[in-house]
């Protein structure tokens, strides 16, 4: 065996090892949650309201609540984030101010979620008087995921080859037509990746919804966007730490539902992305 082949084998081994090191804990978490949570899953658990101080019954209001919140957050953050990304990548020049803005947005993605929670409390709940409501919670989650969406969408737009833009412009298309017909369609897979990341984060965070929407115990469905709702991550926190004597399978069952919900939403986005990628032709 030659030297290059040997070093290739060694490199391959370590890369594989690193991958394994990541996969094993993730796999274990999933296995444990499925193993302990699956016994709790049945139709009643998914469709009933919580009963007996959340020690029995189902988690339907929390599922619906999380669904509404994530949907609302995406509804708010995707259009705004996309427009901002288009501005930053296509219109804003490469001057120091814009570079600082881009850097600031990237760093905003790392701000702890509880800070967003406090911000949402101050702005939406108190100042704009939306109260603790789906609206406040969605907007807070939306603001939290905006940096992720802007940054990934901007990178997706910037990765569309400059030559495509030049060709389009050289044919007399306007800048906006070029963006609309050439740049955007080719950036959609990347934009969806950002949406997937944002979605998962919005579904799983507890702190941003703690002050802005989440109800401790509210065994009915919301009637408007100004109602409070229960949400899965907060519900999980409540039954794990605040309510004594909750059966273990109910806790793990709730975690399993949350995990499945996020995976399901991701799957939908991944399928859409796959279909766009298939059409991508360079």
């Amino acid at each position, binding site marked *: 065996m030659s030297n290059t082949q040997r070093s290739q084998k060694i490199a391959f081994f370590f890369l594989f090892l690193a991958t394994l090191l990541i996969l094993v804990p993730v796999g274990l978490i999933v296995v444990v949650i499925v193993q302990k949570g699956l016994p709790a899953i049945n139709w009643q658990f998914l469709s009933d309201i919580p009963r007996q101080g959340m020690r029995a019954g189902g988690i339907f209001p929390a599922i619906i609540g999380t669904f509404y919140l994530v949907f609302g957050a995406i509804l708010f953050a995707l259009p705004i984030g996309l427009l901002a990304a288009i501005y930053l990548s296509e219109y804003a020049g490469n001057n120091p101010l814009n570079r600082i803005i881009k850097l600031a947005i990237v760093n905003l993605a790392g701000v702890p979620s509880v800070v967003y929670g406090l911000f949402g409390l101050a702005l939406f709940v108190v100042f704009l008087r939306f109260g603790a409501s789906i609206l406040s919670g969605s907007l807070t989650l939306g603001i939290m995921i905006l940096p992720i969406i802007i940054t990934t969408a901007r990178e997706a737009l910037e990765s569309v080859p400059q*030559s495509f833009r030049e*060709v389009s412009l*050289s*044919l*007399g*298309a*306007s800048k906006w037509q070029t963006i609309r017909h050439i740049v955007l369609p080719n950036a959609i897979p990347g934009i969806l990746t950002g949406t997937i990341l944002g979605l998962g984060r919005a579904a799983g965070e507890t702190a941003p919804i703690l002050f802005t929407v989440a109800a401790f115990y509210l065994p009915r469905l919301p009637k408007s966007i100004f109602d409070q709702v229960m949400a899965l991550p907060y519900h999980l926190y409540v039954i794990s730490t605040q309510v004594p004597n909750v059966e273990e399978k109910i806790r793990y069952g709730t975690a399993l539902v949350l995990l499945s919900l996020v995976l399901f939403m991701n799957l939908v986005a991944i399928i859409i992305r796959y279909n766009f990628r298939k059409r991508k*032709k360079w």
Partner: protein
Amino acid sequence: MVKFVAKDLNIWFGQVRALKNVDIEIKANEILSIIGPSNSGKTSFLRMLNRLNDLSPGFRMGGWLGFDGEDIRKIDICGLRKRVGMVFALPLPLPLSIFENVAYGVKMHGERRRPKVCALVEHSLKQAYLWDEVKDRLDVSAFKLSGGQQQRLCIARTLAVEPEVILFDEPCSGLDPISTSKVEEAMLKLKKDYTIVLVTNNVKQAARVGDRTAFFLSGELVELDSTEKIFTNPADRRTDGYIRGEFG
């Protein structure tokens, strides 16, 4: 009739001065070949004519450049680029089907009537000598074509918007001799309806297709004359040296 007039044209990209005091006239319905070694400013000059240089950061121009007697900076830029089409050095199909590539410019200029678009696509593909090769698979991705076919597709795409001038930037640099002769054949046919400016690093190609030939060196226009004169009896010895292959 004169299409383009440049008077004392100078351009810079940041600190780099890419064109120096260029005076040139481009006549309607001629093929003007531009030859010169690498870095001589050929592409930079060509990209002045449809203002594609405006996209480059740090670009500045001085002097005067007129298109049909009008200051090029005062013409609506989309309108200018519709009238002055460009074929790039590398085949650059858009990530669309063959049909949509050719129809792209047409649609961007507001033509929505399907029969009109189809007719234009067919006509343009025929002008570019590509129709027979692709007529049965118009909705296939343009990337499925060979390099030479892609380049003729790009020519068809440029023709479809019905320009007055076509700029070719080394259109055959990546092509084999047969594809090259097809592209040259298309250019010669197009001459009667279009003004053509052809940048080429292939001196023989300039001799084959150009009515007049310009020789650029380090951003300067050294000599511009009829192709015959340039290739038999050039006035400047640097031109002579270049076409003999002594430098470049």
